[in-house]
């Protein structure tokens, strides 16, 4: 696949060369062709080097490149280059796949994602806050390697025994192994320096954090694979700018789009890379717009091509992923209650699937009432009271997403309690009813006290004993859009409950109650009578033995409705992941300084322990080079702005710093800064995409820094210094990896603060927990 691709590119460049050689000012072809030396094109690429060098000297704004480029390592010939890439590939795969089956028990979030992979194999419907692609791929990998989906993944530490779990882990590890390779190629494209690319790859290959996070059944390796692939294709696409609408141009454009869809389909964090590509594209279009040699029609063509490749295509793929998700998961499962009644009727095994129940609501029936707001819960009550200081101290009424016997309510007339004999009367629009909670026999009640969270609304409680309460228990039932005397259809009628005494309407605010309310959703009585889904309800279950059951041909929802609904449910779920009290919450500023890792497996001395923590040497080097990068860019841009004349080599370097480095810095910022504004619970592993960008930036920065040794030393010494610097860097990364590798590959025995441990003396920060 790879060599085919390169071959195609070669052909294209050949054609270009003959047709309009002046367009071929793109000297950046060179490394691409060098890489392809696997294919028999050696003579051609040599040919092209001379040709391009010749052209670049004609080109006024890049005239410096040809001469300065000779200083770079890539001029040393092709075989070391090929060796470098092969070395990166070999090291990357071997470090990631080593001891892949260890430990043979469930580690950390494998309990979620492994379980969800199994759900796909079993075709059981579930709910998760992330989009489905990652878990589908895990499920697929498991299926292909003979895993049958029967392992329950109940909690971390469960032994896998006979199960074929290696396939899922191996799949993630293989994707994770591509990260250093992609990073190598990206940096190579951006800086044209093999040294920079190799430094980046070494940093990532020997980072214990990247190894650990790639080795388990997690979404992160899949996510990062797509992120890096998207960036790589974007960078490659940028290189094609002088040959628009050629096959390779289209190829990289489409590949970018595909990878964007992949990244967003695994986790919503993929949005950040979409932003990165979006900003890059806007910049590119702005450049095209300013190019007055292009007609407006050409600009429009460029624009439309990007709309198709980067918006429509990813959107289509993303929707397709969801379509597959819904087709595959057609059995009822643990996720049902999060979705609307209509949605549930699609799922085999759900009580609404081909349901049969009395068609019209009647007095004496037992019902569940579901809020129509998307992801709204069932009207719920339980034996607990509102705490002191929150309205009056009566029984709580909430909305609850799960199916539960506490969701059952009895429908009564306003005056009598005992159901009559004979066929029961039907409830009509405008009737005044009383709802009795079946389990606790309290009536649904409201009064002029403030609701617990939405202070403008009134509190809703459970009141009375055995159905005897007061006039505040009376509710007028209205069918939306109905007239007096209309019957209430189960499932299909939208109804509202108007409180008789205060005139307010039963409402679910969607806000999560604090601990005393078991983190269920608040139910209030709203004095604003606007018709919103929050104040509309439908009757979902309906049990009345005295009425004949009718099979309901429930309206199956449209695919787009399902799609929209599941997204809103996911977003709600995501923002609902609030940090709990007493739980150790990781702060974004902890991450770049490698303040604290995550325990993947094992706590005690006897257990097999794996600890997710970045190689401190790598991470602190990354942190330092961020500062270094800013200083170098500041110095470079002030010099240029002030109009000092620079040598061609310096101009080349500052271009790489500002363009390539700028892109990577933007990537780092986009993948890191937004976490400061997030209210949801955060973990250390959220930093890893940003860390990839940071490492690539380190590669470029350190390389240029070492290359600038001739600013202070004479030529022979400056070259030596450069070599020495590179060797020191390589050796220190290798040695630190040797020291810290037990974090990834597992350790047993005493803990680090005891002298007999393998990690003795390596607990450089008190906050590390190994």
């Amino acid at each position, binding site marked *: 696949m790879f060599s085919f691709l390169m071959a195609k590119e070669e052909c294209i460049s050949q054609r270009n060369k003959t047709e309009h050689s002046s367009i071929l000012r793109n000297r950046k072809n060179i490394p691409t062709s060098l890489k392809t030396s696997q294919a028999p094109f050696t003579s051609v690429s040599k040919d092209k080097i001379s040709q391009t060098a010749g052209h670049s000297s004609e080109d006024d704004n890049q005239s410096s490149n040809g001469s300065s480029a000779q200083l770079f390592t890539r001029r040393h010939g092709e075989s070391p280059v090929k060796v470098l890439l092969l070395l990166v590939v070999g090291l990357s795969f071997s470090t990631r796949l080593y001891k892949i089956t260890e430990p043979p028990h469930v580690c950390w979030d494998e309990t979620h994602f492994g379980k969800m992979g199994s759900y796909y194999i079993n075709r059981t419907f579930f709910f998760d806050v992330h989009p489905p692609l990652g878990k589908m791929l895990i499920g697929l990998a498991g299926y292909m390697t003979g895993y049958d989906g029967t392992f329950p993944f109940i909690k971390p530490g469960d032994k896998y025994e006979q199960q074929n779990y290696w396939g899922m882990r191996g799949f993630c590890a293989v994707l994770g192994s591509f990260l250093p390779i992609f990073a190598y190629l990206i940096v190579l494209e951006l800086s044209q320096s093999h040294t920079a690319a190799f430094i980046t790859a070494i940093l990532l290959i020997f980072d214990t954090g990247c190894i650990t996070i790639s080795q388990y059944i997690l979404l992160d390796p899949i996510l990062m694979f797509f992120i890096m692939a998207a960036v790589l294709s974007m960078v490659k696409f940028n290189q094609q700018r002088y040959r628009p609408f050629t096959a390779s141009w289209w190829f990289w454009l489409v590949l970018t789009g595909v990878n964007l869809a992949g990244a967003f389909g695994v986790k919503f964090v993929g949005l950040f890379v979409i932003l990165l590509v979006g900003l890059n594209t806007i910049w590119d279009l702005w450049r095209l717009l*300013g190019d007055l040699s292009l007609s*407006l029609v050409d600009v429009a063509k460029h624009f439309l091509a990007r709309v198709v490749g980067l918006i429509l295509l990813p959107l289509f793929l993303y929707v397709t992923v969801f379509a597959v998700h819904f087709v595959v998961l057609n059995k009822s499962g643990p996720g049902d209650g999060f979705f609307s009644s209509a949605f549930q009727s699609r799922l085999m095994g759900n009580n609404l699937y081909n349901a049969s129940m009395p068609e019209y609501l009647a007095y004496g029936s037992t019902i569940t009432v579901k809020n129509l707001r998307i992801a709204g819960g069932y009207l719920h009550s339980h034996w607990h009271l509102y705490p002191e200081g929150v309205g009056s101290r009566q029984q709580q009424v909430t909305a609850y997403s799960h199916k539960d016997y506490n969701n059952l309510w009895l429908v009564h007339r306003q005056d009598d309690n005992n159901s009559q004999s004979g066929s029961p009367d039907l409830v009509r629009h405008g009737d005044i009813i009383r709802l009795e909670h079946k389990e606790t026999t309290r009536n649904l009640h409201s009064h002029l006290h403030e609701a617990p*969270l939405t202070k403008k609304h009134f509190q809703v409680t459970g009141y009375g004993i055995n159905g005897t309460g007061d006039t505040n228990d009376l509710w007028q039932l209205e069918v939306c859009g109905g007239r007096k005397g209309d019957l209430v259809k189960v499932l299909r009628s939208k109804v509202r409950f108007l409180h008789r005494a205060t005139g307010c309407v039963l409402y679910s605010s969607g806000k999560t109650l604090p601990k005393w309310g078991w983190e269920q959703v608040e139910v209030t009585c709203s004095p604003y009578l606007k018709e919103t889904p929050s104040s509309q309800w439908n009757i979902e279950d309906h049990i009345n033995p005295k009425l004949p059951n009718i099979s309901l041909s429930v309206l199956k929802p449209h695919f787009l409705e399902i799609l929209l609904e599941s997204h809103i449910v996911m977003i709600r779920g995501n923002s609902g992941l609030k940090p709990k009290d*007493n739980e150790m919450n990781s702060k974004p500023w902890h991450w770049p300084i490698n303040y604290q890792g995550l325990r993947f497996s094992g706590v005690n001395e006897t257990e097999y322990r794996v600890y997710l923590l970045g190689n401190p040497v790598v991470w602190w080097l990354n942190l330092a080079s961020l500062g270094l990068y800013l200083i170098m860019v500041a110095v470079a841009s002030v010099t240029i702005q*002030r109009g000092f004349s620079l040598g061609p080599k310096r101009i080349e370097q500052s271009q790489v710093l500002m363009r390539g480095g700028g892109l990577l810095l933007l990537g780092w910022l986009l993948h890191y800064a937004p976490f400061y504004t997030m209210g949801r619970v955060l973990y250390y592993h959220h930093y890893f995409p940003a860390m990839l960008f940071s490492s690539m930036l380190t590669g470029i920065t350190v390389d240029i820094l070492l290359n600038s040794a001739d600013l202070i030393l004479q030529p022979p010494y400056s070259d030596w210094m450069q070599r020495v610097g590179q060797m020191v860097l390589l050796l220190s990364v290798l040695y630190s990896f040797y020291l810290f590798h037990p974090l990834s590959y597992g350790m047993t025995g005493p803990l680090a603060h005891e002298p007999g441990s393998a990690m003795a003396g390596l607990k450089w920060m008190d906050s590390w*927990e190994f």
Partner: protein
Amino acid sequence: MSAMLQLPLVVTAQVDLVLVLVSLLALWTRLSRLSYPNAVVFDEVYYGQFVSLYMKRVFFIDDSGPPLGHMILALGAYLGGFDGNFVWNRIGAEYPSSVSVWSLRVLPALCGALCVPLVYLLTLELRFSHLSALGAAVLLLLENSLIVQSRFMLLESVLIFLVLLAFFSYLRFHNAPTSSWFRYVWLLLSGVSCAAAIGVKYMGLFSYLLLLGVAFLHTWNLVGDQSVSHLNVCVQCVCRVVCLLVVPVLLYVFWFYLHLSLLNRSGPHDQLMSSAFQASLQGGLSRITQGQPLEVAYGSQVTLRSSASQLIPCWLHSHKANYPVRYENGRGSSHQQQVTCYPFKDVNNWWIIKHPGRQELVVDTPPRPVRHGDVIQLVHGMTSRFLNSHDVAAPMSPHAQEVSGYVDFNVSMPAQNLWKVDISNREAESEVWKTILSEVRLVHVNTSAVLKLSGVSLPEWGFRQLEVVAEKLFKAHGSSLGWNVEEHRYGTSQEPKEREAELHSPTHIDVDRKISFWAKFLELQWKMLAVKQEESEHKYSSAPLEWITMETNIAYWLHATTNAQIHLIGNPVSWGVANLSLLAYQLLAAVYMLRRRRGFKDLPDAVWDQFVCLGCVCVGGWVVNFVPFLLMEKTLFLYHYLPALCYLYLLSPALLEHTHTHLLSSVTHRCALCVCVSAVLLSVFVSYRTFCPLTYGSPELSANQLRGLRWRDTWDILYRRR
């Protein structure tokens, strides 16, 4: 000499009469009948308590903002002779005659009034005409919400004033000829007003950042200007850095210096601060700790306070109650005496430090100090039990070890009561354990676990006190491990009975201890940023997106018996004008930019620069004062939108002028525009008059008239049922 003196001596003064006129009108609208209503209005109830505390010089901590704003309000109160003796407990409470309401409200009202001439001048500095300047001033003058917000003891008007002043003086600096040195006074003024704006409310920070951005761009152009010498560029850059970065930071710290030197008495919020901080305040802890011995010695009687960063302080505590034999979940305990952390001062918080090898519980003469690394035993003062830990799961955190007061039940569970003193903030290896200053970890010798506050409350059997456990060092870290000695005295009585009496008596001896201002500043600043308010919704709170369309209002005050009331409602017409101009600017800017990129220069460069500068200041100002609210999770109110709104009022007339001079070419179009503008101004005035009764709280309106003013269904206007 005589040659220099030229006669006649002439003074020429140019007075902009329009400017004077709008200033006078602004003063009249903001200051007339300022002491009506003579009652606590809305957030005065909140700021008032701080003003009272300033008057009494009692320390407090307020997480809503830095102290300068409160100090400005307190200055007004001080000038009016307010003695701090008024309880601000509810909105609508009448002020007694001893409180000078006028002086409490005059400073914010003055700031609010001065905003009007300031926008006039600012428009001129943006290089628009006097007519535009007048338009901006009129829009601000007739904005009901700004009037309401200015007329009470609130801070928004002060913030708006300072931010506008910062931009005005910066532009003055930028527009002044490069040769004059006087212009650096304007730059300095700009830096000072930025510091003051941040000192009033943290929202000022965003305007400051915008100003820095604009200044950076200007400086960047200066750096690129080859006609200026290197030396000159360096000097100018240094001046800008000093005025816009160094001075504001120093001033910001200075506000805290003032705050801390004004408030030197202990008060209700003491307990949030560290012991060392509290000891620096008069009264409170310092009264107790004044004259305590500094060095902890064998035989010392101490209370140990947890330095956990949570808000409630607590002290290591034990009492005559044992752990239940079995917990609710069936797990067993050692059934020894409970050791907890107790959030109140109590005689049971006293512990005695004992040398493991000796029996005495009194201090030798001379005292033998305890040093880092020493092994000690801790004896509970009232029950004489030894602090003990062992391999039994703790009641609420089963992964950690239980800590108990050792009781020997003869069940082969030996006492493990040796603890090693580990001073975590030591400077030398043999440092002496110091009262208040030293933060100590107590490491259990047998198991090398550390004494720790787990943060969980015990159930009923533990009297809901906080659980104390011992946890292995590798798991536990952070401040929940540290303890410091708060109260301390040298024990003198060997007999248990005498010792009990001694523990009950207060401590006394003399030493004076101080912590530096910087330590206090950093601690206070950290606490202010870290304190999280209880997430609660207010009846009148609103979401940022509702502000643009003014979906909600806020009822500020309702007369005790009549329908007279004051609401925060903006002038709906001006509000609409502001939104329209925001939209129009963005559209226009987009069109201009696209066309320029394709090589069509619609505007001459000077006009384009003026247009861009207008956008940077006004649209930029709106963005930085509005967008951050979208990301905030705190309770927000309509008045948070007012600073952003002022920028839009600045934008509208300037944009109209731009349209008039550069977009409309034919005379008829221009005339039509003038007619439209006059009509809009007229309707602005009419709607201002219409809402006046709700702005000034008089005259009283009937229920029907009030209903007529409810232009939107979502507005909440109060009617009294008669």
